[in-house]
């Protein structure tokens, strides 16, 4: 009976996936003429370089055209991190180590982690600073930095994140995002409107407010994810 229900559910899901997708011809050009845009995708592709001088169109969509959505996304992540922290966070006693990691890691892992850890941090910073030029951005760069911290937490038992610093970094990054948005409201007409010089295409300092917002998002995501991992690793077993 249960298997029958599962099969029925799968059939319904499969049919509802198949039906709209069967209308689209395989490999069909869905964007259309970029010079004379008729779809919103073509509009973004044709107007991003001239309006915002941002080379990575995805970043322009995420941070500028859909900037308010990104603010909501960042808040969701913040809420998730706050929830995990409020349930699991436990202040460490003096000289207390992580309970989850019981055995010391090998010499090889410790030496390798020490060698590769700064490189991961630099890669993450590169990804979010160049978010408007190359693929990647605040979320990706922040997650890469968090993996760097994770590597150190797993290799060294006494490597802990300072939660006071994390809280400050996280809050300041969030305040930067919102105040840049309010700056657009004051100078221009709408929230998160670009009010800085857009510069020339493919320059590091171009795109107006986009690099500022993405750097703030990068710091925010890195602080949140590192805090979550540190909290999870400090769970004490019953």
């Amino acid at each position, binding site marked *: 009976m249960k298997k029958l229900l599962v099969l029925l559910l799968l059939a319904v899901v499969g049919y509802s996936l198949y039906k709209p997708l069967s209308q689209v011809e395989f490999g069909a050009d869905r964007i259309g003429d970029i010079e004379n845009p008729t779809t919103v995708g073509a509009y973004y592709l044709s107007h991003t370089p001239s309006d915002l001088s941002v080379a990575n169109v995805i970043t322009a969509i995420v941070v500028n055209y859909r900037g308010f959505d990104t603010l909501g996304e960042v808040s969701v992540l913040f809420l998730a991190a706050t929830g995990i922290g409020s349930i699991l966070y436990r202040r460490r006693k003096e000289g207390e180590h992580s309970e989850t990691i019981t055995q010391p890691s090998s010499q090889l892992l410790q030496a390798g982690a020490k060698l590769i850890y700064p490189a991961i941090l630099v890669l993450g910073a590169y990804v979010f600073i160049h978010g408007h030029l190359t693929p990647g951005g605040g979320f*990706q760069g922040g*997650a890469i930095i*968090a993996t760097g911290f994770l590597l150190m937490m797993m290799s060294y038992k006494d490597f802990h994140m300072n939660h006071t610093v994390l809280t400050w970094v996280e809050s300041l990054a969030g305040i930067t995002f919102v105040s840049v948005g309010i700056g657009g409201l004051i100078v221009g007409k709408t929230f998160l409107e670009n009010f800085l010089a857009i510069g020339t295409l493919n320059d590091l300092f171009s795109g107006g407010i986009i690099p500022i917002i993405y750097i703030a998002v990068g710091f925010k995501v890195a602080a949140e994810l590192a805090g979550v*991992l540190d909290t999870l690793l400090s769970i004490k077993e019953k």
Partner: protein
Amino acid sequence: MELFLISVIILAVLLLAVAVYAVMQKDLLYATIATGIISLILSVLFFLLQAPDVALTEAAIGIALTTIIFVITIRNTSRREDEILITQESEASKIDDKVKANM
């Protein structure tokens, strides 16, 4: 173009195979590692399909962070799927006694 299509199809089939393995596996640690491998294949697929932004996200979050969070959770709960069902019963104490006897 042909090579591209063939490699995408091979990766998709591999993805499905690893996904089925992850669902069928009773040992949750193995299932978690399989989920990480799914993310790895998926990020290569995203890159091949010209979505490098999504590929980066999938690589950082899917392969490293999610896998590690699941591993930590397994470390703090139980490793095998059937253990969870048994420990919910009153047999929890019996298992503890058995483990102690084996040690």
